[in-house]
């Protein structure tokens, strides 16, 4: 991580500040004069050893094989490689922070930029500014956070996690800002390592896998659309069902009301009409003879 590298540098700075600053000034001069460095000829290992001192020797120079390859890669990559080393170093020296000044941060960046001297020249400026900001912003956060946590495994993620826990207790305002920046730094780091790994000439194998990946992505999108469709229809049906249920209940109630009403009306209308009693049948002689 960028900041972890800063951390380690800070640690080493305390012990061998003069040497480091001399190296840094050297690197600055070198940078200003000539991009394609003699540092390029010096191996990455040597460079890092010089900068970080002997503190790291037992920790291992797990010299990442991609290190020299990093020279040409993006800034994030180069810094990342260096960071992986420094990460281990920082844990051996947790407390020796010291106050980082902007100058020292800049020196770190310059030293880091040496590792990618062979690479993007113009992009160097933009990268360093971005890195500078992340580092400068993250540094304070780093100091605070490191003091609290002992040592963590995966530095980056845990750092953020713990930072978020610690943040409310510490200076909330500045920490949040730094957190954001730091987060960006980390985000910048991960794709950076991808960029850092030098993409060599595209082999046919890559093209095939690329095609496969493209197909996979398209398939994934299609599946997502299909799920959306399904969900949309389901939601629609659900709303239709509730709508229809309500209407159904309403209509039923209405029907009951109506029939009651009709019955009442009928009864009311019946009252005034009284069926006339038919007169009782009386037998009358009409055409018959009376015996």
């Amino acid at each position, binding site marked *: 991580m960028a900041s972890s590298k800063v951390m380690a540098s800070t640690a080493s700075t305390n012990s061998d500040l003069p040497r480091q600053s001399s190296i840094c000034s050297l690197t600055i001069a070198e940078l200003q004069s000539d991009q394609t460095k003699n540092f390029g000829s010096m191996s990455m290992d040597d460079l890092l050893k010089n900068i970080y001192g002997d503190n790291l020797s037992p920790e291992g120079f797990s010299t990442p094989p991609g290190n020299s390859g990093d020279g040409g890669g993006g800034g994030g990559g180069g810094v990342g490689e260096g960071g992986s080393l420094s990460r281990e170093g920082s844990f051996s020296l947790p407390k020796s922070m010291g106050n980082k000044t902007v100058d020292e941060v800049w020196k770190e960046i310059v030293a880091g930029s040496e590792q990618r001297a062979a690479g993007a020249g113009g992009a160097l400026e933009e990268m360093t500014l971005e890195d500078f900001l992340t580092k400068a912003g993250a540094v304070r956060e780093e100091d605070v956070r490191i003091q609290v946590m002992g040592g963590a495994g995966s530095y980056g993620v845990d750092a953020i996690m713990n930072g978020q826990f610690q943040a409310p207790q510490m200076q909330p305002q500045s920490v949040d800002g730094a957190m954001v920046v730091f987060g960006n730094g980390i985000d910048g780091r991960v794709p950076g390592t991808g960029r850092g790994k030098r993409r060599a000439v595209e082999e046919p194998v890559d093209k095939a896998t690329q095609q496969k990946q493209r197909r996979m992505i398209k398939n994934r999108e299609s599946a997502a659309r*299909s799920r959306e469709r399904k969900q949309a229809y389901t939601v*629609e049906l659900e709303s239709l069902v509730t709508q229809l249920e309500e209407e159904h209940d309403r209509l039923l109630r209405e029907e009951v009301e109506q029939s009651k009403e009709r019955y009442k009306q009928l009864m009311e209308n019946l009252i005034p009409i009284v069926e006339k009693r038919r007169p009782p049948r009386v037998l009358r002689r009409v055409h018959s003879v009376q015996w």
Partner: protein
Amino acid sequence: MEPLVVGKVIGDVVNMFTPAADLTVHYGSRQVANGRMIPPSAAVHMPTVQIHGHRLSSDLYTLVMVDPDAPSPSEPTLREWLHWIVVDIPEGCDATQGREVVPYMGPQPPTGIHRYIFTLFKQKSKATSGASPPPEARSNFSTRQFAASNGLGPPVALVYFNSQKERTKKKR
């Protein structure tokens, strides 16, 4: 409303709006319900579009039917494909009572499952053909832009269905 959001109709074709009119669309006996699948063969002819309301009201409505997934939902380069525009539909009436500005074209999805969206707008006044000329082409239409350039305001009703190419039963 929710199916419109989930189905991404709100977003791709229109912005969020408040339904203010009662619109029903039927292809024969099939009612268009959001997200329902209707085969193209059932939608060859224009549907019966009913705007429920008071016939006495003088409100006039405009109906626009588009397909935002043309030619295929994964690559909608021709979004939106215009299928139908009817203006001056009186409230409480069927779309046949209005004036067809763009003749009805049934769904003919070449690839994938397309959404076909009916958007209803309330007109402020009778649509004069001079106000804005009818679209020249069906491709790359924009419902939003059409509404804006004709002063229609936000939609008052919307309903959509899905359709895909039918499998032709090949007789061997």
